[in-house]
């Protein structure tokens, strides 16, 4: 009798296990598994028929992408949902690596109504020719960080043009007399941040990498003005000579050590400056955030960042995956991510949410920058285009290519990348 009971119990356990749909979510080490984990537990409690677990791999956008390349090239359905960088959806759409999400809505109008609350930038990246490939998890942008204490000391307001930035930086450097104090720090290394360095100044000169007809426009007066500006940052001494090795996190650390007046960087740096960081901070409470400067007479612009939830087209549990996706993209989940992980919300309504503003008051300042953030090239060949811009830029900072040579190399490289 006892054995029979045990057998029945075991069978029941197996049956209940069979009835539950397993879901595997893939995130990177930088995306706060300690916050995502409890979110999934909450989802599992609310949805007894689904068991969602997560897998962590890679701590940078590039490494995470390399792992997903392997999984998706082998058409594995082992992961059901993954986070992808905002530059990826176009490539995922072309490769058939993200399940179109239109099917989960009753109508196109219903879909557009659902997307209304999201910021336009991330939606622009995820909605490709009317097909939705992913939902924004959180967003990001490059900001102008400045030393509020130093600006106040010399009676400056945050600069609105690059010229202003230069003269303020020079004044502060001279008056402070500290040889280690950098006026202006940005990313010039062989990596993703460098494309933003180039594009942000190009956009703020009224240019773009491509014109309305799709012609590559990198040898133009606007682009030349961009290069002349960066040449000037080095010549005037507001930027250090080793800018060619300046990676995103190296920039952040130098600012945090009190060695920088102005810096371009992503939203994650804020929390570090306030003390939530493995390194010591000497700038807690002394940091301000402003929109990027521009050239006189043109609008300021910045690069959009952030991460998207997508469904693996090889997944066997797409309906369950959609339910989880909806949960993760919901205002409640994004509020949790904003409050506990300082992720910048992709939903407009959260920028006036009292809980969010109480935990992250700076998001109020971020909003004006975030809404004007622009996309890096939206193309299935993003890696090639990115390489074609970042290499000449890095070589220019390393004095291997002159400004003109770098622009010609970019023009040729981007054209070649798009002409396959």
């Amino acid at each position, binding site marked *: 009798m006892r054995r029979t009971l045990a057998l029945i119990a075991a069978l029941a356990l197996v049956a209940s296990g069979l009835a539950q749909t397993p879901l595997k979510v893939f995130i990177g080490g930088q995306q706060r598994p300690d916050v995502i984990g409890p979110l999934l537990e909450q989802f599992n409690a609310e949805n007894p028929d689904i068991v969602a677990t997560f897998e962590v791999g890679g701590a940078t956008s590039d490494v995470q992408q390399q792992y997903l*390349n392997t999984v998706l*090239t082998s058409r594995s359905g082992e992961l059901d949902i993954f986070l992808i960088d905002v530059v990826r959806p176009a490539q995922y759409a072309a490769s058939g690596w993200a399940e179109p999400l239109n099917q989960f809505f009753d109508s196109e109008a219903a879909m557009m109504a659902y997307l209304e609350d999201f910021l336009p930038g991330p939606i622009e990246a995820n909605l490709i020719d009317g097909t939705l490939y992913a939902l924004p998890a959180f967003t990001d942008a490059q900001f102008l960080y400045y030393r509020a204490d130093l600006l106040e000391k010399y009676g400056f307001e945050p600069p609105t043009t690059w010229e202003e930035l230069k003269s303020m930086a020079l004044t502060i450097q001279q008056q402070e007399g500290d040889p280690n104090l950098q006026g202006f720090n940005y990313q010039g*290394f062989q990596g993703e941040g460098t494309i933003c360095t180039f594009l942000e100044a190009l956009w703020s000169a009224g240019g773009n990498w491509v014109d309305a007809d799709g012609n590559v426009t990198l040898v133009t007066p606007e682009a030349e003005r961009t290069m002349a500006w960066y040449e000037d940052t080095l010549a005037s001494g507001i930027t250090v000579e080793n800018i060619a*090795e300046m990676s995103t996190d190296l920039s952040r650390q130098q600012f945090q050590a009190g060695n920088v007046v102005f810096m371009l960087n992503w939203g994650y740096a804020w929390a570090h400056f306030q003390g939530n960081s493995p390194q010591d901070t000497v700038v807690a409470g002394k940091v301000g955030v402003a929109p990027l400067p521009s050239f006189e007479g043109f609008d300021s612009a910045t690069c959009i960042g952030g991460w998207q939830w997508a469904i693996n087209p090889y997944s066997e549990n797409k309906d369950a995956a959609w339910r989880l996706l909806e949960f993760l993209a919901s205002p409640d989940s994004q509020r949790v991510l904003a409050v506990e992980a300082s992720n910048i919300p992709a939903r407009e309504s959260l920028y006036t949410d009292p809980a969010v503003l109480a935990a992250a008051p700076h998001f109020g300042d971020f909003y004006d920058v975030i809404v004007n953030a622009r996309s890096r090239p939206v193309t299935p060949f993003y*890696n*090639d285009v990115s390489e074609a811009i970042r290499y000449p830029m*890095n070589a220019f900072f*390393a*004095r291997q290519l002159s400004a003109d040579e770098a622009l010609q190399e970019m023009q040729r490289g981007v054209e070649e990348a798009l002409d396959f």
Partner: protein
Amino acid sequence: MSAGAPYLHKDGLPLALTTPHAYRRPGFWRRLRTGNPTEAQLGLILLIPAALVLALVMFWPIAQVLWQSLHFERLNVPARGRPFIGFEHYQRMLWGSDMTWDARHLLGWRLLAFAGAAGLWWGAARGVLRRPTALIWTVIVVLVAGLWMGYHPGEAGRWNDARFWNAFSITLLITVASVAGSFLVGLPLALLANVESRWRWLVRIALLIPWAMPRVLVGVMFAWLFNYTNGVVNDLLGRAGIAGPLWLSRAEPAMWAANITIVWATSAFVGLILLAGLQSIDESLYEAAMVDGASRLQRFWAITLPLLRPSIAVALIFRTLTAIQTFDIPYAMTQGGPGRALETLGIYVSNTTNSLNLGYAAALAVALFVMSLAITVLYLRWIYADD
């Protein structure tokens, strides 16, 4: 016709048709069936599992990469499928537009290659190398350096893939510099670790630690040491009154920094192999030499170096092969930058794969494979020259 022709059987038939079949060794399959294989056959049979495993994990992937390199395959252009395109990738890799032939093109490098071939003949004459080996390599050098290296894009042309040639020369440069460097540092280390002393254990631990460290970690660590503003290296140079260079922000210093790092990480390996070789040298040889009044230097040249040759060869093979495939340290230090100053073939293959251009990445991987294979064959023939 008294006794009949001797070549005829008594029945009048030719002898050859009547004699019973001469004894024939049973065939391979028959012996196998009867459970009575010869020793050679048995050896062959026992080799089959190992050969199968080798074929599965080595030759099959190599064959697949070769096959893939002959196909167009870009995962972000799935509409185009995976058509066979022959040698198009290799043409892109090795050729350019408006190609012209000029005897003076790359003259220095070509002369260097010819000098290398002459060196092989010198080695053959001294019995260090077999003549056929020297001959084969001379033919290769004449074909590649004599004929092919004269081709280059003319005024109006350019290489199809200048990035490949950059990666190729960066790889060669790192290989030559870092292999030479790791021997220059590794050999003294091994000699030091072989000296009887109370502190020998310390030297041996120092030999092991760099080798036990993950390379990526070494790269990240040295990137910090070579950092222009906060790095230890420039701090020390500054104290000595020398203005440190922009190590990782300029092409030439970056090459030095990468090679110094690679030598630091790999000379320990060379040292360990050479130490093993040193310990197998018979002490009595040195004693005899001392009785004969040989100086330290003479003992080193006449005993240590020649007897160390097999160990040197082993260390050289492994060191050169890993050097040709260099990826981790330059990637961790600068991601191949500044510009493309540290972009080795390994890094280029990785970048191309990550751009999802699998077909071309396969062709680049084949180029890397051919380079490694050529070096291995040369070394192996050199090691076995005496046998």
